[in-house]
């Protein structure tokens, strides 16, 4: 079934839902590819769970002039990144 943009129940790009496409893709993977993909997804899922459990990590204010990366962007939340890294290894 084709749905137009903004359909709330599920995302339909072609004649298949996203889940149907995922099922088909999984069926086409070799055992090794499936294992690698599972490992990757599992690690990412665990990281997202750790993020949710930790909530927003509180950061102390930095002195004036600090908080900008070598390439000029604002400093990302490093404390959250460390917490996530530890939760997944």
């Amino acid at each position, binding site marked *: 079934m084709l749905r137009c943009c903004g359909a709330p129940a599920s995302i339909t790009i072609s004649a298949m839902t996203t889940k149907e496409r995922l099922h088909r893709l999984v069926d086409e993977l070799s055992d090794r590819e499936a294992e690698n993909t599972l490992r990757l997804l599992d690690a990412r899922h665990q990281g997202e769970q750790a993020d949710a459990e930790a909530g927003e990590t509180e950061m102390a204010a930095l*002195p004036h002039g*600090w908080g900008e*990366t*070598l*390439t000029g962007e604002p*400093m990302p939340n490093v*404390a959250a*990144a*460390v917490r996530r890294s530890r939760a997944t290894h």
Partner: protein
Amino acid sequence: MLVADAALAVELSLDRLGEQADSALGGEELVAPCLLWSEVPSVLSEMAFRGEISRDLATQALERFLTGEIHVAERRHVELTMTAWRIASELGWAKTYDAEYLAMRGFSILASSRSTCACAAAPTGSGSWSRHPS
């Protein structure tokens, strides 16, 4: 002597002012257990993998960290691991990563008190600090 954990070391490695950390911290020496040299590359790599920072920035930060530009010195203590093990157990922590930094902080306070006490011998031999041979 201050103990730097992975969050501080990563942030100093990324920050354009990171090389000024020692002066910003009042001239205190920054030390860390060898665990830091595994954690920092891993965190930087994961941040780049997730697109939170560019791969180029992650590489620059790692090089800065490894070449000692942010002035964190590696220290070892023969009792560090077992002390961290006990701290984790007492605090109900499954992992010992945070406990290693806490244990090192305890040893650094002990070392400072010994070095400022006129009647105490300098810490040598078993249980003393050592620099990682580079």
